[in-house]
């Protein structure tokens, strides 16, 4: 596809890439080498640093330290921006311009109008099959055509490196195939191709080599016969066992003693993110829904919290004896702290913000003494480390912020607490504290439903694991049946790997 033969062999080499946002470290010394003609796959759990890596290569973020070399030369952000092209999940172009205009914008030949297409532009347009669409407004075209325009735009700028960031999550099967065909032809022409995706099966099919990024660095590299969906899934879930190895195995409760609380039957997502999902939640247990992005696990947890649009079939039924349970509520906490906390409020205010009648006087005024008392009580009960209740929430550490987010929910004792990745981006000691807080809440008769992407975590906190893949719950595992996090991870990995016909294990 490329028009000029590369003068030097193309390559990308990244060494010691570090990126910190305040207290949190997104990348902690990432090393990576890719040469032209090769397709490198990158996988990693949420928050592992994949998207930060993509943003740095795209020039959207500046690395704290580390080096990037393209074709053996130092890559300078801004100056060399055209040499690395990113194909986004949602194309980042000008939807109000035509395809042809999108190709030349920023490189206009004259000050008036946008001049003519060069021969190269026309050749690229016909190579990418965009010629019939060149005068159409980009925003009117399908995502796949928009992505192709993104590729074409990079080609006319003679980019050397193509970074595909979750490129086909919004595409149909046919469109994906076409996109991957282009991806291969780019690699065949000698370009460096990097594919970031959650879809393990696709990655195995298209990549020559894959790296697993965990905690901001490359944990494992796989190629050849080692590169299978199962091994990747295992790498993803059996993570950092050193973090949890010294934790004593908890006492497991007998599943039979726990009374049923909420039964979910035949729930289907309106956009088919999951279909006909049924399961049961019991009092006093922590249930983890495990699945990679796109498996439907996240959406199922949100659906139980009433945040997704569902098909009218199926539904949720509360147990008859649950009528007194805080109005049968399901409280929800997102994984993203910027959406679970109020940055303009203090620690104390964040702790009580979900309160209503309990802090209201007869005339609708807030009983400020009661607020302080409740906030202080929650602060002690949930071991929130803060200078005072009036401290701005943002000045707390990530772990303590997360504790505030969870405490604000658990202190009201909802019937079910639905938490998304409750320990994402949280340090080890806060993780343990959060687990024990959840355990306390469940011992009091509550039920926690978690969405998790990591299995070691699941073993530490959950009683039961529901594994989701391809919009369905493929199996249910009892944590008590396993001796170690690794054992549980092994069992779920093969199921999460996305085999076409998930067999129900027992």
């Amino acid at each position, binding site marked *: 596809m490329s028009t000029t033969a590369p003068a030097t062999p193309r390559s990308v080499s990244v060494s010691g890439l570090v990126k910190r946002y305040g207290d949190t470290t997104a990348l902690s010394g990432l090393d990576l080498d890719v040469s032209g003609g090769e397709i490198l796959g990158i996988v990693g759990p949420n928050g592992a640093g994949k998207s930060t890596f993509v943003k740095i290569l795209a020039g959207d973020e500046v690395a704290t330290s580390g080096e990037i070399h393209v074709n053996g030369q130092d890559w300078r952000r801004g100056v060399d921006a055209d040499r690395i092209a990113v194909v986004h999940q949602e194309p980042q172009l000008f939807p109000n311009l035509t395809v042809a205009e999108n190709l030349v914008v920023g490189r206009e030949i004259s000050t008036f109008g946008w001049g003519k297409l060069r021969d190269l532009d026309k050749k690229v347009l016909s190579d990418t099959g965009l010629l019939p669409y060149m005068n159409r407004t980009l925003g009117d075209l399908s995502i796949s055509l928009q992505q192709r325009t993104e590729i074409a735009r990079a080609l006319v700028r003679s980019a050397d490196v193509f970074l595909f960031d979750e490129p086909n999550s919004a595409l149909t099967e046919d469109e994906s195939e076409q996109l991957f065909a282009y991806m291969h032809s780019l690699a065949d022409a000698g370009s460096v191709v990097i594919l970031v995706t959650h879809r393990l099966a696709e990655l195995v099919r298209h990549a020559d080599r894959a790296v697993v990024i965990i905690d901001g660095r490359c944990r494992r590299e796989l190629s050849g016969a080692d590169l299978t969906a199962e091994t990747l899934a295992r790498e993803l879930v059996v993570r950092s066992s050193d973090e949890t190895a010294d934790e004593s195995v908890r006492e497991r409760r007998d599943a039979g003693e726990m009374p049923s609380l909420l039964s979910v039957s035949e729930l289907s997502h309106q956009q088919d993110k999951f279909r006909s999902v049924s399961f049961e939640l019991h009092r006093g247990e922590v249930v983890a829904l495990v699945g990679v992005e796109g498996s439907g696990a996240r959406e199922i947890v949100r659906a139980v919290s009433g945040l997704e649009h569902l098909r009218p079939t199926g539904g949720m039924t509360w147990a008859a004896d649950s009528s007194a349970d805080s109005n049968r509520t399901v409280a929800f906490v997102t994984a993203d702290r910027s959406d679970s906390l*109020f940055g*303009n409020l203090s620690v104390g205010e964040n702790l009580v*913000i979900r309160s209503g009648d309990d802090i*209201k006087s007869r005339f*609708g005024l807030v009983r400020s003494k009661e607020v302080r008392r409740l906030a202080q009580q929650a602060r002690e009960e949930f071991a929130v480390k803060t200078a005072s209740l009036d401290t701005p929430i943002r000045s707390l550490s990530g772990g303590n912020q997360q504790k505030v987010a969870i405490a604000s929910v658990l202190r009201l004792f909802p019937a079910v607490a639905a938490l998304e990745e409750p320990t994402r981006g949280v340090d080890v000691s806060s993780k343990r504290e959060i687990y024990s807080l959840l355990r306390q809440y469940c011992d009091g008769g509550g039920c926690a439903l978690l969405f998790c992407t990591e299995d070691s975590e699941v073993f530490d906190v959950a009683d039961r694991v529901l594994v989701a893949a391809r919009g369905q719950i493929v199996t249910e595992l009892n944590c008590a049946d396993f001796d170690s996090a690794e054992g549980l991870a092994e069992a779920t990995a093969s199921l999460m790997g996305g085999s076409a016909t998930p067999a129900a294990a027992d």
Partner: protein
Amino acid sequence: MSTLAIVGMGLTAILIVGEIDLSFASLYGLSAMMLAVSWLKWGWPLWAGFLLCIVVAVLTGLFNAFFTAVVKIPSFIATLGSSTLIFGFTLLVSRAQRFSTSSPPAGEVVRKGEISFFRQISNLHLPFNIPMQVVWMIVVALIAWLILGKSLFGFRLKAIGGNPAAARFARLPVTKYKFLAFIMGAVCAALAAVFDFSFIGSVQPDGGQVLLFPIFAAVVIGGASLSGGRGSVSGTLLGALLLAVIANGLALNAAGAFAQQMFLGVVTIAAVVLDQVTRSWRKS
């Protein structure tokens, strides 16, 4: 000053919840005009005219909130539209006429008692020559302080404006509170209009138009954030006081009267810059 402060109280509520209102100036004109027309021209009793004026304000608040919180049009556009709509309606109702309590339209008999009572609302003689308008301002500010500063409504309003996504996840009544904030804003504008009508003794259709910017300036100088989540009754009161004092000072010399507009612009930008600087300083 009292006009700035009273209308500003309502705008503060709307800014706290993270919305914006450009229609209060037109509404100020319309609500006074509804009272004048129904009372002086149609011969309604004063109380009915006042009721109509408040009903019109509540309807305007509902209108703004509906397009903002339900249809989800940016409030800037929705209230810009309603502002023009309201102004046009004011011209239609009043036939672009001015109304005065001292010379009601010919052929209508307005009870003398009502007129003198209405004048007293803002012109009553108090000991120490305290202007009645200041009394009304304090009353409205007190109520607004209870609502925004002390009530559960005010507490949640701040949270909703600070992080709408988190508010939805926490199941706070986002839509309902936006409606209430817009209604509060509209009612404050209507009250200010009635007090001013009583004080001046006449209304004209474009009465409120010049207020748009000064009120925004007062509220923003008072520390309310245009991106939501911040603002207070005491701040708005201080902002209004500052603007009134300096405007008064400038009005006392001839050149100052013309420089007033420029001054208003400068102070507002300075206030926002100061806010931005202190916030980024606090962050680091």
